[in-house]
């Protein structure tokens, strides 16, 4: 009797899982598997069956200078956005956590870019970066400097894209630091004040180490965003000039929907999936050991 009740519960639980399982299979697991498979085949022409080529597509990809350029861009993009936005987010949180006049307004100013769509943010920054009528060059001109081709000069464009991403992202990370700061017991500060510890060393010896789990959490999110968010490229640069701002996911899009080269797109996607797997491992090993689940 007890056994059948248990079985019934199992059946019921499985039924409850079914809708999610079907959808996850259709839009996460299956596409992942077929992407990997596609990266091992060359499509057959005129109805011929696809030809298995092993790792040939990868060799081809790794011989392609353009791929390395895009991968390098993405690395620079990550190195440019992540530490900057984390440092800024921490600074913002420290500002807003203190007794600042107009604290609510300041906090709102920091956070607002977060809720804008990337496309809208890119539109707004386009007004700054545009070569002739853009605000930055108008201001430079007014000060007697010659303008910079913010998005058209290959040596500057990626930097311009990075600046915009930092602006968009920092406020989001701020709220996590703010929450963490408010969880630090005030007694620590009081004790250190009694001992005459400077604010600087209090920050580095007490606050910063206590914020470590938050920093790791924010880092994981920032890493994911550096791979996942390429919306702004569609407005700002389209990956140009000459691929100077092209990022991996945008390159996948280009290959699949502009060059109609699904095989290369699948191969690059596998590379992205591997990067994400590393990030996921990082999260599940380092971060989860330190976080408490209530």
């Amino acid at each position, binding site marked *: 009797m007890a056994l059948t009740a248990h079985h019934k519960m199992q059946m019921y639980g499985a039924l409850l899982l079914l809708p999610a399982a079907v959808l996850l299979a259709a839009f996460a697991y299956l596409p992942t598997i077929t992407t990997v498979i596609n990266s091992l085949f060359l499509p057959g022409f005129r109805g011929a069956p696809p030809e298995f080529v092993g790792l040939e597509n990868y060799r081809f990809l790794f011989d392609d200078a353009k791929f390395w350029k895009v991968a390098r861009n993405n690395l620079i993009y990550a190195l440019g956005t992540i530490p900057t936005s984390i440092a800024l987010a921490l600074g*913002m949180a420290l*500002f807003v956590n203190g007794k600042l006049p107009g604290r609510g307004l300041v906090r*709102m100013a920091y956070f607002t870019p977060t809720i804008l769509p990337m496309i809208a943010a890119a539109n707004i920054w386009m007004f700054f970066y545009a070569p002739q009528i853009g605000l930055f060059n108008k201001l430079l001109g007014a000060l007697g400097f010659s303008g910079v081709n913010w998005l058209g000069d290959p040596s500057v464009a990626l930097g311009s894209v990075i600046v915009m991403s930092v602006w968009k992202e920092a406020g989001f990370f701020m709220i996590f630091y703010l929450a963490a700061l408010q969880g630090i017991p005030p007694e620590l500060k009081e004790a250190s004040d009694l001992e005459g510890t400077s604010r600087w060393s209090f920050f580095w010896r007490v606050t910063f180490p206590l914020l470590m789990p938050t920093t790791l959490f924010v880092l994981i999110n920032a890493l994911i965003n550096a791979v996942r968010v390429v919306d702004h490229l569609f407005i700002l640069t389209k990956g140009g000039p000459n691929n100077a701002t092209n990022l991996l996911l945008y390159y996948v899009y280009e290959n699949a929907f502009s060059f109609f080269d699904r095989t290369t797109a699948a191969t690059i996607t596998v590379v992205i999936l591997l990067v994400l797997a590393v990030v996921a491992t990082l999260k599940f090993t380092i971060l989860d050991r330190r976080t408490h689940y209530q």
Partner: protein
Amino acid sequence: MSSTTTHSSFRNSTSRSRRLSIPSLETVAAWLLAVIWIFPLLYAFWAAFHPSEFMVRFELFAPLTLDNFVNAWSQAPFGRYYLNTFALVTGVVLAQFVVCTLAAFAFARFPIPGKNLLFMLVLIQLFVFPEVLIVENYRIASELGLINTITGIGLPYVASAFGIFLLRQTFKTIPRELEDAARIEGCSWLEILWKVYVPLAKPTYLAYGLVSISHHWNNFLWPLVVTNSVSSRPLTVGLGVFSAPETGVNWATVSAATLLSIAPLLIAFLLFQRQFVQSFLRAGIR
């Protein structure tokens, strides 16, 4: 004073040492950063509400105008885009609530064999999202006949690992005694879910709902790929098509269009700031 300081000194403890100088260097820095941070948005407002010759001429009494909004509205079907985004966001959030609730309930309370492994499998989706798999998801969406439909935009996001995770966490904290009491009264499993678990998880639904609404209001890449006409394009894609630099649309009009597409979410955020920020926090600390 002393009874209230416990809380306020908790938040303001860092400020104690800089009461001397007014305004302190730190205050100036904080405000300067705030002005820099909000400036792009203020500039968009300036550009949208003035004739285009004032784009880079800042005169206090420059004439205000709504022409840019009228132009934007008449040059692109923003009404339709609004409708599409609205349908998309409502549909996705409702479907996510249903699917994620059922799955989270199963994970929290049912003895499913290999449950931990299954849950780990679900969590993979936190990293492998629909936009990374655009190529294959596009193929699957087209096989299901979902290209250029609002369902096609939303469906890949319905079984959200994130939602399942959040709701499972919440469900697990609900005492079994409440469930037992309901069962004694003869409630079925679904009634228990509906009458005991769902009402007690309201704050989680609110948090997850707000995060999900913001995400799907702003989402771009997958909707861009899966739509190809006005009939299903959401605001972000519509705006992207409208304001692509090569279309040569007047900039004042572009900024008006940009404000049009962010207005509802921006206003909602300004009105319910606390709820938004708390939702992001709640959803983020996982």
